[in-house]
């Protein structure tokens, strides 16, 4: 097993005057899943495209294996709607030079593991969102890449298929792949070994999820009446608030924060402290 790490080192990417990524470093290691989280326009896809060599950084270094050693699941799965499940898989295998017995073995294993064996002759365009993503993932795994790059694998996927996708991704990591995936949902990012949260092209938070929650600084509490502080956000019918010190109001009940809280606190601090958002 090759233990090489891949990733980005101090990478910046500019589109004209727009800084799409600023000084971003991400390390990808075998048997490890790294989640890149952030909203639309935060730089997640730019990061993946830079890693894949589709974009050239303005500065910084990119380390990736040779072309054939990378598997890529684009946003929206990238499958061909006019080809059947098996034809999609065969096409991907052909593109990576996987043929003959190697192909048949990979096909049988991937169809069984994704549960797509019964749908092997169904057209890609007739698959549900979850099945499409599983087929896209199977296509990205057919040549057993050492680096697996997944762009929003769970978007448009229901919770049952999502848990199956997650199992497949975990198995790929367990078998030795370095995995990087983007997501807009922090409960999903929280399942990765490490998370890189992007906000407007800048790394807002980075590290193992538990470390990020532990490192939140200050206190997070819950209250049922609208708080005065601008460090407040909605959680259901109540609000969550952050304070650098103990809460001195009995109306605020301290809670154990989660990754979502940690990211919101970091984002609010960044905005308020850089003066981008008025009180």
């Amino acid at each position, binding site marked *: 097993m090759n233990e090489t790490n891949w990733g980005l080192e101090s990478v910046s990417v500019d589109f004209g005057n727009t800084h799409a990524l600023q000084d971003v470093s991400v390390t990808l290691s075998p048997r490890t899943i790294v989640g890149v989280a952030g909203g639309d*326009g935060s730089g997640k896809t730019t990061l993946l495209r830079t890693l894949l060599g589709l974009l050239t950084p303005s500065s910084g270094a990119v380390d990736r294996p040779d072309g054939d050693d990378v598997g890529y699941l684009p946003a929206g799965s990238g499958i061909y709607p006019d080809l059947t499940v098996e034809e999609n898989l065969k096409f991907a295998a052909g593109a990576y030079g996987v043929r003959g017995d190697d192909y048949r073995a990979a096909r049988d294993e991937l169809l069984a593991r994704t549960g797509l064996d019964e749908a092997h002759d169904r057209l890609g365009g007739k698959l549900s969102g979850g099945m499409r993503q599983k087929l896209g993932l199977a296509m990205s795994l057919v040549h057993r890449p050492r680096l697996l790059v997944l762009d929003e694998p769970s978007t448009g996927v*229901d919770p049952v298929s999502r848990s199956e996708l997650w199992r497949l991704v975990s198995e790929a990591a367990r078998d030795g792949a370095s995995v990087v995936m983007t997501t807009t949902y922090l409960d999903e990012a929280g399942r990765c070994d490490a998370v890189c949260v992007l906000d407007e092209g800048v790394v807002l938070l980075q590290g193992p999820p538990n470390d990020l929650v532990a490192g939140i600084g200050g206190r997070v509490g819950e209250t049922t009446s609208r708080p005065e502080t601008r460090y407040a956000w909605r959680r*259901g019918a109540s609000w969550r608030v952050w304070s650098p010190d103990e809460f001195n109001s009995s109306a605020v009940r301290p809670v154990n924060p989660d990754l979502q809280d940690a990211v919101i606190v970091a984002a609010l601090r960044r905005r308020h402290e850089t003066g981008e958002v008025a009180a």
Partner: protein
Amino acid sequence: MMLADTGGVSKKFGDFTAVDGVDLTVARREVVGLLGANGAGKTTLMRMLLGLISPTSGRVELFGETITPDARRRIGYVPQGLGLYEDLTVAENLEFVARAFGVDPPEFGDLASSKDVLVRELSLGLRRRTAFLGALSHQPELLVLDEPTSGVDVIARSDLWETIRATAEEGAGVLVSTHHLEEVDQCDRIVVMAGGRIVLAGTMAEIVGDTVSGTERTERFERRFAELAIA
């Protein structure tokens, strides 16, 4: 009076039963999450509530009576695709929607600096904000939202939920269809569909437990879902 109320409602397409005997209510001031795998019947149920298709059998009522053309004016709807005109500006989109409902265009609020920007040039967060403002301009009593915060960052998501919650607190009822725990967490109660039926209804705490944290809750949520979908 319930804002939305279905009793044993079913919808068949040929031999296929998309919705099978569903009882669903949405009251004033509550946010109800509608969950289910693809094909569970969520969209068909929502389309019946919006008056776009008729049930095969059972009862669908809005505002205490069978659906009338007037009922549509009391509903605000934000589809997943947002339903905005990409070649119009934010202001033009909002004016167009307001005129269709015969009301004044809404205040721009935090969209003021973007009001003359074409919708297609907006970030997804601001597009969602525009669609919300438009859907709320006629002060609907029932708000129907399809995956309302998908794709936006945490701050924009928290702002959207603030708007949804404020709308409910002012007296509207909200029905939200979603796949994601982070949205489910914002609802007062949830209704889970599988195979056209309601298989579970209750609060999030009743479904995954109250005290578990982040990742564990996600895993329990998905496991619970898998059990229900197979049942």
